């Protein structure tokens, strides 16, 4: 539809002032590449934050909650006045008695990706006269790692060694420091029921989360059963991960037929939901700001290009070129600039993102800067850069199309 003549003029404009064309392409390129880099970087930061959040917390947790409902024990008769005094909730049972059966049922649910059970109890960790109170967690060694990817956080020893013996333990790096303990040292653990046992440290973790690093000890589930003297199917918590943690509340509601409390991470930690929402808002705000700044830059350049050619537009109109021809000529230029800027911008954005993702940056679970590479970011950046360039070319072109050739030619 674009006539060859118009194409020829458009390319003559592009090639006659290469510097200006290159500057126009560069402005698209920087907008696109900055968008890609910033989104990748913020995505990476968000991802590592999320990973830290879920390093000790599952997406959905099933546990035995204290029932605070006062049961209607007496009557439904409306003529009878019922009066309770000093109503107290009574916990009839502790923990989950038939955990294995529940897990087997849950495994049939295709929405759940990982399921593991834990026996969590409070206790005191001691070395000589120094003691630290904290959590003892009896875990399924394989599934616990599958769920929380604990091996990422290992700073000494080997997580899998935990499975070798009921007297092995894994502790956090802060606790090790406080108790002056190293790998293969012995640590004494006392439960709230006053049972004390010595364990050998086979692995030390650094997760960045103080609830683990300073106050948690992992032992084998069978070792925890020994401490609590419970049946083999007992657990205090069943932890569930799903593919998309944002859907935890929905999925938790779909889990039925369980007499225990099923709670999504959103329900248990509203502050994390707020923090997550805020981080996402910041990410959107920053990428919007980049897009707007880039859009104005591109518009400016395109406007300048058209202004510089205003005399030639007047000549073309005098020679019989119509407004549509002028729009075609400048839109063609905008499309070329948008395409080149977009392609090189995506390449540069990928380059910057790759380079930054290799910059050393010490944090738990990673040695380098966080970065995500999402195809959708790249497509959005390219599409946006292209679209803005065309819009930025269209408005000045429209203005140029309405130029009165007489006023330009007469001066």
């Amino acid at each position: 539809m674009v006539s060859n003549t118009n194409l020829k003029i458009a390319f003559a404009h592009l090639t006659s002032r290469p510097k200006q064309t290159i500057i126009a392409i560069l402005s698209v390129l920087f907008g696109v590449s900055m968008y890609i880099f910033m989104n990748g970087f913020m995505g990476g930061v968000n991802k590592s934050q999320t990973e830290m959040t879920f390093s000790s917390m599952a997406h959905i947790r099933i546990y035995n909650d204290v029932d605070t409902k006062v049961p209607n024990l007496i009557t439904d008769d409306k003529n009878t006045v019922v009066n309770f005094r000093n109503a107290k909730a009574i916990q009839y049972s502790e923990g989950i008695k038939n955990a294995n059966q529940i897990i087997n049922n849950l495994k049939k649910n295709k929405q759940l990706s990982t399921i593991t059970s834990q026996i969590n109890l409070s206790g005191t960790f001691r070395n000589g006269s120094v003691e630290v109170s904290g959590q003892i967690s009896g875990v399924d060694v394989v599934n616990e790692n599958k769920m929380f990817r604990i091996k990422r956080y290992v700073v000494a020893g080997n997580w899998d060694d935990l499975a070798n013996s009921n007297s092995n333990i894994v502790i956090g790096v802060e606790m090790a420091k406080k108790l002056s303990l190293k790998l293969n040292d012995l640590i004494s653990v006392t439960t709230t029921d006053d049972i004390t046992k010595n364990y050998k440290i086979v692995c030390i973790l650094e997760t960045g989360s103080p609830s683990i690093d300073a106050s948690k000890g992992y032992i084998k589930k069978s070792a925890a059963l020994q401490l609590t003297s419970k049946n083999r199917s007992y657990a205090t918590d069943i932890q569930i991960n799903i593919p998309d943690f944002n859907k935890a509340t929905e999925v938790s509601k779909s889990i039925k037929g369980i007499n225990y409390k099923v709670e999504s991470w959103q329900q248990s930690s509203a502050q994390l939901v707020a923090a997550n929402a805020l981080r996402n808002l910041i990410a959107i705000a920053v990428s919007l700001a980049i897009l707007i700044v880039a859009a104005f830059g591109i518009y400016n350049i395109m406007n300048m290009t058209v202004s510089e050619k205003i005399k030639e537009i007047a000549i073309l109109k005098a020679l019989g070129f119509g407004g549509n021809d002028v729009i075609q000529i400048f839109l063609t230029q905008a499309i070329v600039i948008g395409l080149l800027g977009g392609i090189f911008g995506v390449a540069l954005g990928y380059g910057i993102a790759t380079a930054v993702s290799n910059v050393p940056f010490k944090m738990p679970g990673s040695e380098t800067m966080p970065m995500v590479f999402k195809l959708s970011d790249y497509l959005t950046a390219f599409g946006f850069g292209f679209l803005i360039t065309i819009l930025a070319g269209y408005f000045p072109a429209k203005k140029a199309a309405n130029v009165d050739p007489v006023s330009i030619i007469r001066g």
Partner: protein
Amino acid sequence: MENLALSVKNISKYFHEPKTFQVLKDISFDVKKGEFLSLIGKSGSGKSTLLYVLSTMDTDFAGELIVNGVDLKGKSQNELAKFRNEHIGFVFQFHYLLPEFTSLDNVMLPALKLGKKSKKEIKEKALHNLYLLGIKDQAYKLTNKLSGGQQQRVAIARALINDPAIIMCDEPTGNLDTNNTQIVFDIFKKICHENGQTIITVTHDEDFAANCDRVIELQDGYLLKEALV
């Protein structure tokens, strides 16, 4: 009517900036086909304004304008652009060529836009025009590498490419020396008398005007006198 190239009736035009001022006052005249016409007058007499009204580029006027038998009042800008492309050629005081293109490309442009002939035919005709104007050797040079006289001749070759009925010129020799002025004048004369094309030119050059077929003088927006030479 048949052999009229252009006919204007009661044309008036106002400028509104800086204040309303009538620049053309009730102008009427006819131009025959093959006529070589000069518009003369002092600065501010309205002669250039009249030319741009005739050229169809300036549409802000009252009155009737018929070019080549077509009434142009009330046509859209795009229709007028198409009409100009086919029926009117332009030569400006400052040659106004496209600097990114060679002489040949500049000459070919209006014909490519018109699209009535193949590219090969257009190229042949463009080269022929350049040959007639004595600048065939400059065909493949960028126009900003040419001298003023050469550029003006390229502009004339461009104005002629679509065989327009009328060629309109705004001070075509204003920037040229005597020698080049003579060359341009001879070309114009030849175009009128051999091809039967009409030329309307605004000029300051009294010698140039004196040698035309017909001179129209404007003063303060009025048609002052018509002199047949």
